[in-house]
């Protein structure tokens, strides 16, 4: 499927009139090229497209201001390691970008050594696996790793949702394995019973045998480790068809349009997500929410806010380097980011970076699906 996989979209052109005006009036001479290596098709494609909307809005805003010009170059990883490597090589070697927004554990794990070698900085708001800790000095996550979120949602599930027996459905993947290990460790620490662990291949579509096995142990909740919205939707739908009325637990990747497509069957699903309140009064969030709503005629979600913030963070670091008359290279970006940005306040809240291992801490909430929408039900910290 080469035609689809290698689809490359050069974005930011819609802002051309603003760019020209800015270049003339404020003397812009540099174009910053920014890579966007995310799934734009495939099972996670809708989520990737959604994230692109957030990043694109930030690019449009920065280009319209005129002081800097950003060209966003998108490559479709389909959330697959092989496609990720192809896309990264194209971005690093052909497009010569110093900085790439990327995501999904398999992709990040595959391209991290290449990023280290080529000194291209990777920022990700969609990689949840704790296996990515310290994967590269050129990688920083703005999405909390799931060993952290597991430590938040499992006590909540035990105390507030009265979950005593947990079934674990693990995807055979880097993320699935790391997340499964974190869940087992935390659930055991809480002194609770893990009724069963079942695994499935990432291309599986028939979950009924696995689910029958899990349901036979009568769990109060099933933790689904899949990061693929379409697969998660299939798991929930097929479990409901088998008569399971219990709880599903998951994490941020669960907030995917594919989940809403299964309607009421998606209710009683609970997942963690970084705090993002579209009604927040701080100026950054309000400005983003207003602009996004104006452009798309709908309010933004957490993924769009996260990816808006990534571009704004890139722009802030690049502006610092420009003031210092330093060239924008991956190495310079890393030095500037790690020395001047221990925290960052973006549209999606405050990011507290741990540059030692590439992780981040953010305030987190529990969300669920209600009346066809993802809604917050509790703060976790």
């Amino acid at each position, binding site marked *: *499927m080469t*035609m*689809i996989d290698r689809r490359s979209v050069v974005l930011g052109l819609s802002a051309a009139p603003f760019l020209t005006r800015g270049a003339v009036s404020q003397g812009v001479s540099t174009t910053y090229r920014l890579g966007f290596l995310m799934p734009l*098709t*495939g*099972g996670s*494609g*809708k989520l990737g497209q959604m994230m692109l909307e957030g990043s694109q809005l930030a690019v449009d805003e920065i280009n319209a201001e005129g002081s800097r010009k950003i060209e966003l170059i998108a490559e479709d990883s*389909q959330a697959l390691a092989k496609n990720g490597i192809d896309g990264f090589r194209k971005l690093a070697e052909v497009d010569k970008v110093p900085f790439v927004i990327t995501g999904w554990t398999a992709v990040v794990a595959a391209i991290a050594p290449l990023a280290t070698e080529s000194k291209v900085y990777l920022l990700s708001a969609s990689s949840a696996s704790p296996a990515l800790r310290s994967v590269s000095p050129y990688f920083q996550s703005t999405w909390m790793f799931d060993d952290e979120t597991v430590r938040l949602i499992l006590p909540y599930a035990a105390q507030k949702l009265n979950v005593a027996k947990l079934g674990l459905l693990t995807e*055979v993947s880097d993320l699935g394995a790391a997340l499964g290990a974190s869940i087992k460790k935390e659930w055991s620490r809480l002194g609770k019973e893990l009724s069963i662990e*079942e*695994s*499935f*291949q990432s291309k*599986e*579509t*028939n*979950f*009924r*045998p*696995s689910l*029958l*096995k899990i*349901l*036979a142990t*009568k769990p109060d909740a099933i933790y689904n480790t899949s990061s693929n919205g*379409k697969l998660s939707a*299939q798991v929930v*739908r*097929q479990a409901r*068809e*088998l*008569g399971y009325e219990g709880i599903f637990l998951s994490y941020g990747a669960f907030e995917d349009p594919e989940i809403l497509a*299964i*309607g009421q069957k998606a209710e009683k699903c609970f997942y963690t997500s970084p705090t993002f309140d579209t009604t927040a009064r701080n100026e950054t969030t309000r400005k983003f929410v207003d602009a996004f709503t104006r452009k798309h005629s709908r309010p933004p979600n957490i993924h769009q806010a996260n990816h808006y913030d990534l571009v704004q963070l890139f722009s802030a670091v690049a502006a610092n380097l420009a003031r210092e008359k330093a060239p924008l290279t991956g190495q310079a970006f890393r030095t500037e980011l790690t020395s001047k940005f221990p925290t960052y306040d973006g549209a999606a809240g405050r990011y507290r970076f741990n540059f030692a291992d590439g992780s981040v801490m953010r305030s987190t909430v529990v969300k669920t699906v209600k009346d066809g929408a993802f809604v917050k039900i509790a703060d976790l910290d």
Partner: protein
Amino acid sequence: MTSSMLLLNLIVDGVTLGCIYSLIAIGFSLLWWIAGIVHIAHGATMLAGGFALFAALEMGGAGLSVALLAGLLGAVALGVIVEIFMYRPLLNRGTDEMGILTASLGALIFFEYAITIAFGPEGATLDAGGLRTPVIQGLPLVFDRFSALIVCVTLLTFLALWFLLAKTQIGREMRAIASNLDLAEVLGINIRLVQVYAAAIAAALCLPPAAFLLFNTGLVPSEALHVVLVASVVAILGGRGSLLGALVAGLLIGVAESAMTWRFAAGWRQLITFSLLYVLLLVRPQGLFGERV
């Protein structure tokens, strides 16, 4: 749920899955038997039927009966086009079995791409809704009305095909061609026309499994090759030209795949399919119900 009840549920679920496997395989088996064609493009024909059904239901807003007709037309049109415009010219030029197989694989990839471009790589899934309620309420047995429908349609389809082959003129002609092509030609049978009919029937047989997959686990364009792989394994296991063989082999694989999760991780399910095939090829190379050549 007790362990034995779990096994029973897995077997029941495996029967449903096996029925779908049998339905996928029977069209493949028919063309292999009658025309000697290893019809790899069968996977694309099934997708064409399924996505035509999906398009009519979801995009066209058609009712189920009209959508099923659209699905049938989509599958039959593609099956006949492949037969007339690809297999026939190649066979007329004396292309051998490997050449036909390669061309069929090419057709599968071509149509898989076409369907991907038209509908996207994510594929399509529809909800069976109220059909997903148990046949008998209150039992620990997981057997819903959708599963019952799959079993009934499978049995009816196989009965109808048996009737067509055993009791109708076109069926007799098909069997004559499969038995001895030269003799059938001497007897005045229009080989070309009968093979087109066979291709149309094989394609039409794709509709039930396509519809069941659409309302069950979903249809994904990139699954076309996997679909035809399952069909070929079932056809080989069942024995060339054996209707009963295709039904039994499909059920055997479905039940084995599902039941093995009783003791092993589900991720290893497909290992059982090819293990069964290997063992059978060792002990009974003509398949379960095939005749030794």
